């Protein structure tokens, strides 16, 4: 089994995968999307004149661009006047459809949908807040047929707030997942050491734990940068963030514990026990507690992380290789550390035999 760490093929595979992740992750463009509308509070029944700014669109005169305003699941209004101003700017004109006001709903959050034959649909939820207005209300009409979806293209999804930072999925999320894999390996070898005290198991445990600390730090740095770009601050008082900080502290404490014991067997015994304790304490910290409380971070408080729409097929094509790549890179780094420690153990045994 240990022969695996001397083989070359998986190291080459790792490098190729990471090369692919970096190149594709940075160069694949974002799908076109709607950045902003010039006026979001409109009155039903009034004439509408709104500028829409889009992102990553290369539209030209003569393209058949359609705009729809979606009131609710059945009432969709097709905007009659759509004029292209620039390659990323549209002017929507027309007499806005009124809607029947009842006593409870004084306004409606309407969604703006744009369609372009090449780029497909662009959606901006809650683009307009339409108040009932005093004018004569028309009966709602609805569009029977929306245009067909555009064919799949090699582009990342456009999400408001995230925008271009969606690429950090391949770094922040993937690095944390790789860290968890490394920590599980470390845990398994700690248990193996306590059942069968061989110093080699301890060498594996500590190598993986040390690499996991590096990965955790990288995950924190990328996460902080991401938070700065999306939430506006490097650190927030959020359960998930606090608990992962605590989890990192536990593993740094593990490293310090190892450094402060001189006797090899004693160090292996105590640090293996602490490693198991730390890992088991970390599971409720990072995984369970944030889910019980409300949190900004995806994956908490009814906020999906890796399910549903958040990770679409294009992202998956890069995300999964990224996770595997970082995990294997971690295994590679840990195997180098392990080999170094094994040489030290052998030297120690040889010096004892002399």
């Amino acid at each position, binding site marked *: 089994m240990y022969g695996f760490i001397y083989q070359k093929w998986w190291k080459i595979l790792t490098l190729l995968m990471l090369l692919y992740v970096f190149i594709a992750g940075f160069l694949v463009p974002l799908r076109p999307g709607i950045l902003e509308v010039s006026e979001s509070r409109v009155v039903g029944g009034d004439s509408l004149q709104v500028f829409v700014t889009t992102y990553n669109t290369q539209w030209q005169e003569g393209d058949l661009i359609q705009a729809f305003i979606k009131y609710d699941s059945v009432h969709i209004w097709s905007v009659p006047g759509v004029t292209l101003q620039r390659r990323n700017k549209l002017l929507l004109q027309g007499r806005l459809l009124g809607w029947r006001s009842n006593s409870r709903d004084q306004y409606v959050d309407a969604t703006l949908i744009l369609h372009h034959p090449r780029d497909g649909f662009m959606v901006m939820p809650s683009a307009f807040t339409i108040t009932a207005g005093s004018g004569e209300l028309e009966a709602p009409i609805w569009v029977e047929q929306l245009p067909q979806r555009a064919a799949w293209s090699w582009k990342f999804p456009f999400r408001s707030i995230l925008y271009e930072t969606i690429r950090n999925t391949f770094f922040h999320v993937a690095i944390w997942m790789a860290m968890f894999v490394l920590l599980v390996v470390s845990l398994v070898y700690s248990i193996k050491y*306590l059942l069968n005290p061989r110093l080699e198991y301890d060498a594996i445990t500590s190598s993986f734990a040390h690499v996991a600390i590096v990965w955790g730090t990288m995950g924190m740095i990328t996460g902080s940068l991401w938070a700065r770009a999306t939430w506006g601050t490097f650190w927030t008082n959020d359960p998930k963030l*606090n*608990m992962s900080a*605590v*989890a990192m*502290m*536990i593993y740094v*404490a593990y490293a*310090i*514990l190892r450094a*402060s*014991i001189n006797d090899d067997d*004693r160090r292996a*015994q*105590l640090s*293996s*026990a*602490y490693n*198991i*304790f*730390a890992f*088991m*304490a970390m599971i*409720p*910290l990072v995984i369970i*507690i944030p889910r*019980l409380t409300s949190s900004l971070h995806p994956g908490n408080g009814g906020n999906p992380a890796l399910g549903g729409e958040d990770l679409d097929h294009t992202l998956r094509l890069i995300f999964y290789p990224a996770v595997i790549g970082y995990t294997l890179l971690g295994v590679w780094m840990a195997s180098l550390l392990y080999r170094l420690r094994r040489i030290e153990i052998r030297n120690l045994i040889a010096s004892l035999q002399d």
Partner: protein
Amino acid sequence: MLQSLFSQIKTELLIEYRSWAQTASLLLFTFVLSYVIYKVKAELNPIEFNFIYWVFLMLISISIVIRTEGHTDEGEHMLVYTLISPITAFISRYVFNVIYLLIVGTGFYLTLYLFYSPQFDLTWDFFVLIFCGALSIGAALSFTASIARHLAGQNTILSILSIPVLIPVILMLYNMGVSQFMQGSVELSMFLTLLSISLLSIALSLILFPMVWRR
């Protein structure tokens, strides 16, 4: 087993009673601490009081827990090792820590109350929180203390090892205290979360302690 457990707890308490000066110094320390807090800020709102109480209790508890580990020296350890099982040894230490934490926690609360008495009412509900705190802090610290006892610079190492495990417990207790002061009651789910964290650390400690106890 129960008998050896009780006799072990009794022994630990007896040893502590004979070296009563250490307990007295800890109580004096909490008194001095309360006095310093009072001199620094003479008016506290309940939330600040709650914050100060739990954070300082966390720091005091580290020096409390390391004390149990100092009871036995090398030779005595060999004797105890032949007499009782590691699980008995762990439970006796845990119970001792809880008793000790209860005494010091109550003392700290009472001295703080002494200084800030016009601003607060002495509530029995807070004693329930102190009891929960003693149980859960003891659970978080007892095992890490048994690791730290083998090392030089025990106190520093113990604080490094245990503070990450303690933080969620202290956060939970702080939140419980806040809802106690603000709403007058604590939700059952908070108690259950604290209980499950403590039970998890006790279960892990019982599994792992025999491995660490051997020398």
